[in-house]
């Protein structure tokens, strides 16, 4: 039972008084990294700091961000959902396919049902059947990719007349995806901090046995987490399909890895019990800024891969440095 995944090989670290740790919170370091990146890119490209570009970053980050919110909740409880990428594509295909037959409202209803079904199946497999979340959701990833292809006949399906969700700018010229992103982040942050459900997820992640013995309905809570992830996939999938006006069963490939990267970059621990939405938000924005900034700098896409990797390492390494400096090692 005394196991941790990504842990301190060095026990001394754990004895550091919490106080000194909290003096520079993890999120402050991430914010500093984000700021440093922003300053760097603004010296490299005159366009980086324009309001339009910053909005672009937010828009591009919104689908990842929306899905990363319940992703954080799940990881905090020691669970994963790797089916989100193919899930979002599948939702899009269901929406376009349903719309083609019965119109937009039915399409949306079908998409919602599909998303909740995904959450349900993942949840049942993990909590009722007791199958490892990684295997469950990797299997689901393959299944949904395949089903999406089958439903779409391997083609991209057009979805006309459903552009507003992805493109309308109802307030202050801010596009709906960004507003939804903000809303999801705020709601999830509140849920995680101020609800029994949210706190239960932390407790489950920190020690599933203790949580169960404390009378927490661990299975129900985790089930809820997968359902929320399914719900976020619906929102993300619909935004994506609305932005593109078309649904491709190949869309959003690799999204699951971006989500996991953002969440972990944001300070959540694979071993559960640690992580915040603010951290994840910063993680999402750092990744978004990296992609955008490197493109603005006109860098060859191969070198972009290299730069992305190096900067990711640097960001986390910087955080480790903070731990050493503030810790009394």
């Amino acid at each position, binding site marked *: *039972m005394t196991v941790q995944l990504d842990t301190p090989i060095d026990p*001394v670290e754990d004895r550091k008084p919490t106080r000194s740790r909290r003096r520079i919170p993890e999120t402050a370091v991430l914010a500093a990294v984000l700021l440093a990146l922003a300053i760097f890119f603004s010296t490299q490209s005159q366009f980086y700091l324009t309001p339009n570009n910053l909005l672009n970053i937010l828009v591009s980050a919104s689908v990842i961000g929306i899905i990363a919110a319940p992703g954080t909740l799940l990881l905090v409880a020691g669970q994963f959902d790797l089916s989100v990428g193919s899930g979002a594509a599948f939702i899009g295909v269901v929406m376009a396919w349903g719309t083609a037959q019965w119109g937009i409202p039915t399409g949306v209803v079908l998409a919602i049902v599909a998303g909740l079904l995904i959450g349900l199946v993942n949840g049942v497999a993990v909590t009722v059947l007791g199958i490892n979340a990684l295997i469950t959701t990797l299997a689901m990833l393959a299944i949904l990719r395949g089903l999406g292809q089958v439903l779409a006949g391997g083609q991209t399906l057009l979805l006309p007349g459903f552009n507003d969700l992805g493109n309308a700018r109802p307030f202050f010229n801010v596009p709906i995806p960004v507003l939804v992103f903000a809303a999801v982040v705020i709601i999830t942050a509140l849920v995680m901090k101020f609800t029994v459900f949210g706190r239960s997820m932390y407790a489950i992640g920190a020690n599933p046995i203790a949580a169960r013995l404390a009378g927490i309905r661990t299975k129900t809570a985790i089930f809820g987490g997968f359902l929320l992830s399914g719900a976020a996939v619906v929102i993300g999938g619909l935004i994506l399909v609305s932005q593109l006006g078309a649904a491709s069963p190949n869309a959003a490939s690799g999204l699951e890895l971006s989500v996991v990267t953002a969440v972990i970059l944001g300070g959540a621990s694979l071993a559960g019990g640690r992580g915040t939405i603010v951290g994840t938000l910063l993680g999402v924005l750092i990744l978004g800024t990296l992609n955008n900034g490197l493109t603005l700098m006109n860098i060859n896409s191969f070198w972009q891969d290299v730069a992305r990797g190096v900067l990711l390492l640097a960001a986390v390494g910087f955080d480790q440095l903070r731990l050493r400096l503030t810790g009394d090692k």
Partner: protein
Amino acid sequence: MSQLTLALRDISKSFGGVEVLHKVNLDALGGEVLALLGENGAGKSTLVKILAGDYVPDGGEVIVDDVSAPSLNPRTARKLGIRMIHQEFQDAGALTVAENISLGRWPTTGGIVSWRNLKRRAVDVLTQLGVDIDPGALVSSLRVGERQVVEIARALADDAKLLILDEPTAALSQQEVDRLFEWVRRLRDRGVCVVYITHRLDEVFELADRVQVLRNGNVALTAPTSDVTRRQLVEAMVGRDIGEVSRPVGAGAGAHGEPMITIDNLHVDNQVAGLSLTVRKGEVVCLYGKLGSGTTQVAEVCFGIRKPTGGTLDIAGTAGFPSAPTAAIRRGVGYLPPDRKREGAFMSRSVVENLSVASWGKLAVGGLFITSGMEKTAYARWSSKLGIKSADPANQQIAQLSGGNQQKVMLARWLERSSNPLVLVEPTRGVDVGARQEIYSAIRALAAEGHAVLVVTSDYEEAVQLSDRVVVMQRGQQVAELDGNDVTAQNLTIAAGG
């Protein structure tokens, strides 16, 4: 407040075909403290886990207020007002002290978790327990004794009707024990039923109204405390007579060998201020102090886990602080950590592996190749000496041993390595009376063979029964050094500040 009556009837429970409880009965009545005693592995923890709905019995009945409760689980048990402090901590290290205290029953207003109330509740209960623990600290940053206090605080912060305490005092200082007892008595007087498991017999007479002894999964004795003597209890537990509390034969006598640990003017942050001490070959020195007095830090410095801020250390003639455990081990030091679950045991690995892990390099052919046969040999060397009970040591996970037996394996790990000097922190934590004597004799025998042993303990009787010499610490300061006939329970408690 309504009282709760729980009864276990003819409870049996098996693990892997081995029955560990045989038709056991137990009555828990409101307004009474029931002490549950027995040797390591007798089945005490298993029995109370059934009471708390954690284990489902294979046979028998759990009767709640005269009604049979066939499907007791942690949740329903909780609803009934049953609270349990587990022998193996069940806390959430990544969360704060305050949250651990309210784990699973966060104070809410209108469905919103109230962090203010959460904190207030924590501050309240911690002050009442008289401990100085930051409610905002992460539990993983606490020392083992502090974690024990948090576990207790969790159970006390709640209005329990049945409170089960499984060896809650194993890591506590006398002062904390006193406060705990005060609280337990108050709860009892309010009609709460308390089931109390301990290996410390004086606690039984201090606290319990009734006592029940388990031996090998059977009830060996049930009686009002006033009707039994210590001797009867021990006999019921162990099935034989055990000598009186006494100073070890030949303690402090004669000249010892060369110094193996020489600490001079040690400072560690603000936790240890100017400690000096020498442990020689053939000598058992106890470093005695209450929880938080700095004794553990001294041990950690000797093993290279903690960096000192001043002073010198000499180990077996080589000066310098070890930089890491590997360095300390290379210099011969063996270290038994205080927190078995976190720092000692590999819970998912086998018993023999846990025992031999520190000696792999020694056991292995060419320091590289090892078989489980070699590990079994190592196990065989210690199992009978220390009385380790394991059904299938080569395959059984250590998690499946009783707490006391796990502790014996931890100790054997360093005995097998024949480390010299040995630094043992709370070596008999959770070990039963009989086995404790076995461990003491094993340690004395090692000393007689020329080992130098430093025992860090918060148990004055341990100091009395084990040491040649005792160094007493209080609030990081070295306050006394006792030897010979000066080592008495009374002198020790006075020196350590009550």
